[in-house]
């Protein structure tokens, strides 16, 4: 998708670079780190954990939309399946949280492998519609499959003991785990984007036929990126399931797919920090409007329309344009 390119992403001479971060990005990262460390002392930790899970989900989505130009409109499938599998294995088999989350991620990745292989047969709008339709098929599957508990969901999921040792019952202990999971995968995505593999992805985004003529098997690259993205979406879903002790149909519903698109659109597609900011704002709005019925939906719709019409770079994209540095 022709994401509005904020700035040329490659500058010939890079005076400053740590772990692929430019100076502005390094400052932003330190701010983010400080926020993650300090926030739980002032803000309700369960809410913060929710934000971090959705931020990770949004970053996984951004890997596709921002760096490959693929609009997947069905990412709830991988997020939700990750959440179900983590919940189920943690509850039924009594697996420790780190293994349960990992299994959730693998499920997301596996599903992404199948759905991705099908969807990349078409491009553009069709790709979006096919991913949406496949996710809806997955939704109906979850509705009927016995292991998901249908409308009841999987309830009473224990948070368990990390590595079988550290109890995560307290919100603070759980928060530390969620924060670490978030940071690990956030940095992983950043690393991938700045690897040679990431450069090929960007080449595909800018001009797929050109990348093909240069000898790259673009479909393979797209599929690998898709699987990586869905794996991380599964991790995010699994972590969320443990935080709340529940996995339900909400996580596989198309509305969830729309929400992750919105987080990216609002935060800034193709920026590194945009999805995090987008997730934070959207979750905050949802929280503030929680008692107000469908006004949440209306607000999300208004943000969608406003972003598309006059704000296509998103919050972080606009800031980046203002300070003339990529973020």
């Amino acid at each position, binding site marked *: 998708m022709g994401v509005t390119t904020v700035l040329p992403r490659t500058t010939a001479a890079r005076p400053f670079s740590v772990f692929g971060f430019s100076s502005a990005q390094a400052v932003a990262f330190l701010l983010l780190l400080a926020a993650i460390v300090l926030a739980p002392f002032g803000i309700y930790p369960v809410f913060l954990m929710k934000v971090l899970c959705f931020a990770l989900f949004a970053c996984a989505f951004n890997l596709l939309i921002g760096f490959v130009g693929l609009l997947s409109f069905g990412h709830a499938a991988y997020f939700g399946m990750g959440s179900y599998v983590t919940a189920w294995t943690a509850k039924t088999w009594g697996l420790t949280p780190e293994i349960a989350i990992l299994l959730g991620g693998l499920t997301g990745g596996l599903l992404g492998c199948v759905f991705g292989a099908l969807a990349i047969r078409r491009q553009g709008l069709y790709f979006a519609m096919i991913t949406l339709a496949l996710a809806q098929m997955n939704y109906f599957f979850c509705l009927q499959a016995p292991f998901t508990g249908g*409308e009841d*969901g999987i*309830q009473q999921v224990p948070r368990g003991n990390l590595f079988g040792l550290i109890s995560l019952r307290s919100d603070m202990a759980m928060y530390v785990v969620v924060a670490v999971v978030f940071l690990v995968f956030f940095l992983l995505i950043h690393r991938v984007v700045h690897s040679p593999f990431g450069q090929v992805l960007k080449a595909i985004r800018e001009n797929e036929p050109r990348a093909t003529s240069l000898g790259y098997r673009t479909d393979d690259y797209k599929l690998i990126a898709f699987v990586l993205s869905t794996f991380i979406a599964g991790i995010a879903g699994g972590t969320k399931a443990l935080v709340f002790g*529940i996995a339900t149909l909400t996580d596989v519903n198309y509305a969830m797919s729309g929400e992750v698109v919105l987080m990216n659109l609002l935060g800034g597609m193709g920026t590194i920090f945009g999805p995090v900011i987008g997730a934070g704002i959207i979750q905050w709005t949802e929280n503030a409007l929680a*008692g107000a019925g469908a006004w949440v939906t209306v607000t999300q719709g208004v943000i969608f329309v406003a972003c598309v019409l006059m704000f296509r770079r998103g919050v972080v994209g606009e800031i980046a344009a203002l300070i003339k540095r990529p973020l």
Partner: protein
Amino acid sequence: MTQISRRTLLAATAAAPLIRPARAQGKPIRIGVMNDQSGPYRDIAGMASVSGVRLAVQEMAGSVGAEVLFADHQNKPDVGAGIARQWFDRDGVDLIMDVNTSSVALAVNQVCKEKDRAYINVGAATTDLTGPQCTPVTVHWSYDTWMLARSTGGAVAQAGGDSWYFLTADYVFGQQLQRDTTGFVTRSGGKVLGASAYPFPGTTDFSSFLISAQASGAKVLGLANAGTDTVNSIKQAVEFGLTRQMKIAALLMYISDVHGLGLETAQGLYMTESFYWDLNDRTRAFSERFKALYPGARPNMDNAGCYAGALHYLKAAKDMGVAAAQASGAAAVARMKAMPTMDDAFGAARIREDGLTLFPTYLFQVKTPAESRGPWDYLKVVVTTPAEQAWKPLAESGCPLVRL
């Protein structure tokens, strides 16, 4: 208490995160009413049940101060559990009430147990609340699937309905209602020929299930659903001519549903409630007081249960001291179980150790338009089941709190 407008309350809830709940002496009790305010069950619970709780608070205002919050759980377990957590952690709620929709009820049940806050469930039907998942903080009021199956299912089966087809809302409530009814049908020599489970919420067209039901050749169509689902499935059954061959047994129906269907369509149906506004002088007096807070409808057993449950909790809190009731949900519920209940809606009753409240239940038949003397005069009592026989025996409860 005057009617607090919805907007004011919403504003209050939104501002709540800024205020740390201060548990000072003399702080009023906060009751959170959580139910379906927008979906298929909003007409049976919704603001009518909130009004029931408000009436109880009003009547106890002289001795115990309490305020009422309410929220819409949208029939989603994750939404319900989230609201419960925020109510306890941020808004200082002491008691959660109603929570219709069994899947949500069970999710909230866990949060209440974890946080040691009292929980009076009225609107949900699952027997798990007083069975395998019973907790020291949980009380269940008004009805459950076992009691419905025994009353309606048993009566229809004995009246010659010996082959059944179920139309079931596919979640814990519908499944249990189908299971319990199947038990009573087979015990009286009947057979179940088939069932269609449909996704809840969101199904409005039941036609293809109705055609399967018709093709099964069963004599009775058992509706294991509630609210507008029940209303829609009955209407469509009439539309498809099903009623020419089959009898409909609406296993959970409220007087509000009869009102929605109209007597022309609903006449002759059997249904079970544990409360009816026109039973005796006390129920009529209660309904008049209810009407002052919620004009436009007569209370059903859910609304009445919200009134009676809140009233009993407030009496217990007065008895043990408000601060003590606020300190521990388990202690408050233990006191409630120790005291006999007494109110205008259900009369004298008691709460069993597994949390189930025991009073008589009534099998009603919907009147014909000719029999009805006016709006809301809809039901006539066919059978009254005494409290000792109406409910699942304690021996079968499966509740870990029960020591036999």
